[in-house]
């Protein structure tokens, strides 16, 4: 008997089932979100050799968190909501007048210039992590507020968005090279000096 047709057609009716199976597998095993958070650098274990650097007390902004989540800022009790403003005032105080872009009060009893200003954060072992993150957020926020202001003045753009674009791997190389200098300049205007002392145990 002569064959009339070629190979018989494969039934594709179950193709949808196979695709659904794959789809459900990928839905279950994957996550859609990218993580975000506060970037911090830990201090290195062994300090550099020249440890004889004397830091004046007025250049240190101490923040203490106790186990109940209360704040002691420069030896005064402070509400968390006021912390950002206090940190901003400390950072751009400009006591020695060398910082020409600072708009602070030029109080002699506070920090000399942003280069020297250090924020020291100390917490108790029983402090809640949520409180700690809120304080960190406010302190980083204080730096970002100042950097944003300077970036707006110099380049008409926010520092945070410039930095995000600079760090984004999809940004083209030309744009990134252009941003690199700007980001670096702003960072040098207000260097982030946030020291975390070892936790107290009492």
């Amino acid at each position: 008997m002569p064959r009339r047709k070629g190979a018989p057609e494969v039934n594709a009716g179950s193709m949808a089932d196979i695709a659904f199976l794959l789809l459900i597998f990928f839905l279950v095993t994957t996550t859609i979100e990218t993580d975000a958070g506060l970037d911090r650098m830990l201090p290195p274990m062994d300090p550099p050799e020249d440890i004889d650097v004397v830091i004046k007390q007025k250049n240190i902004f101490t923040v203490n968190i106790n186990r109940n989540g209360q704040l002691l800022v420069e030896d005064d009790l402070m509400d968390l909501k006021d912390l950002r403003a206090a940190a901003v005032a400390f950072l751009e105080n400009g006591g020695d007048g060398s910082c020409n872009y600072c708009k602070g009060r030029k109080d002699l009893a506070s920090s000399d210039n942003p280069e020297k200003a250090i924020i020291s954060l100390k917490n108790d072992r029983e402090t809640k992590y949520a409180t700690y993150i809120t304080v960190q957020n406010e302190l980083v926020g204080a730096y970002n507020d100042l950097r944003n202001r300077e970036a707006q003045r110099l380049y008409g753009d926010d520092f945070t968005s410039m930095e995000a674009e600079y760090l984004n791997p999809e940004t083209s190389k030309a744009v990134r090279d252009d941003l690199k200098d700007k980001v670096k300049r702003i960072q040098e205007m207000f260097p982030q000096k946030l020291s975390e002392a070892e936790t107290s145990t009492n």
Partner: protein
Amino acid sequence: MSKFAKKKDGDLPAVSTASLPDIVFMLLFFFMTVTTMKDSSLMVENTLPNATEIKKLEKKDRVIYIYVGKPTREYQKVFGTEPKIQLNDKYASVDEVGSYILAERAKKPQEIQNVLTTALKVDKEANMGLIADIKQQLREVNALKVNYTTYEGNAFNNLQ
């Protein structure tokens, strides 16, 4: 004669499902491209705190994760309710963090071993004592770049 029998007007023709696979494949490819593989299942409660000044963690291959929180309900009978550290798929003590970081670092290609970030995914109910111990361990193995992973949101909501 059946050959010339008229079709009845009442019954609708069946909807063709021939393009259903195409639609489903489209969905499949969408999900394959926008998502990433889950690497470990959580054994600790992990409600992250909120923050506003956050940066995105780009490049997943350069991140090492450490989870901290209370054991989930099914493990509470065995492990209690004190916050614990989870590394990969099991609970670990503080002393194991350093060696875990070194082991994970050794798995990565040579050229990115110096630019790794440690993402701390810590439940907001955890105490800072445990975090301080982890930080001390990280300093000992020179893994200084950390990211406190948070949700985006008003930081003052953490305090309630």
